[in-house]
């Protein structure tokens, strides 16, 4: 979650406010590690979260969507899966932008579209993970 917010709010806007050369170098160095890092963290969080649901006394997957706890956990689960998908789409945009900057074949308009898409997906991803964590954290009080 922190990485997603850090990326959307701090890093990406600031990278764009420097030089294209730096953007290219950083994308080359960060994008693969970044995808690996965020994807691994997301998968570990979701898998252990599901294991926790099934091992919580008195709770099971059949409770999802039923009652306050089940609804909150279901919303959190949907938001986290949504964030995972959005994160994957952002990864595809990053790869496209990196290729465009490296080859020099992309037009300014295409690069601008990629940057805009990446920025929007970054913010959507950040909002979704906040919803996911928030609903999960307060589920037992619902």
């Amino acid at each position, binding site marked *: 979650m922190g990485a997603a917010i850090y990326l959307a709010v701090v890093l990406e806007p600031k990278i764009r406010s420097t030089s294209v050369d730096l953007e290219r170098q950083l994308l080359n160095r960060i994008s693969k590690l970044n995808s690996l*890092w965020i994807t691994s963290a997301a998968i570990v969080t979701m898998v252990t979260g599901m294991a926790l649901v099934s091992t919580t006394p008195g709770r099971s997957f059949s409770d999802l969507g039923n009652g306050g706890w089940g609804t909150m956990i279901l919303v959190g689960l949907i938001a986290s899966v949504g964030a995972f998908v959005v994160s994957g789409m952002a990864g595809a945009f990053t790869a496209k932008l990196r290729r465009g900057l490296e080859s020099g074949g992309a037009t300014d308009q295409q690069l601008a579209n990629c940057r805009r898409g990446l920025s929007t997906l970054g913010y959507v991803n950040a909002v979704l993970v906040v919803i996911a964590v928030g609903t999960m954290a307060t589920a037992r*009080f619902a």
Partner: protein
Amino acid sequence: MDAEIAILRLLHILPGAIWVGSAVFLAFVVQPALAKTGPPHSPALLVHMLKPLLITLHGSAIMTIVFGIVMAFRVRDPLFDFLWSTDWGTMIWLGFLFSVVAYGIGNVAVLSNKKMADIGKSLTGPPTPEQVAEMTKLRDRAILLARIGALGVVTAVAFMALAQHV
């Protein structure tokens, strides 16, 4: 009571997740990448990044610690009796200790980054060999401290998360 604890939990856990994720991401992904990019690019980026970085890290860390303390007082009364005499208390004060120390170490890392950014800001042309050496020293120190700080925050989260199960 439940609504109050739920809100306190949100105000503790959300910034906590932002703090730990940002700290780990900065220490193990961004800073090493900037180190490989090297001067003059990395100090130039740091100049732009420092303010939002400080707001994100300070804001989330302070909120996490403050609301964590408030919540601890609300869930256990009298808190200090529980802190020293139960396993829950031991885990909580250990988590608190690690988080405060990690926050302090993180601040020293930020100071090193700030000094590096100041050198970058003062550059009017290519950096001299002395400036490159100074920036490299500050960068390596910042990376090391950021890693120690990030591991400290992760340890704090582990203690806090396990507290109610020991």
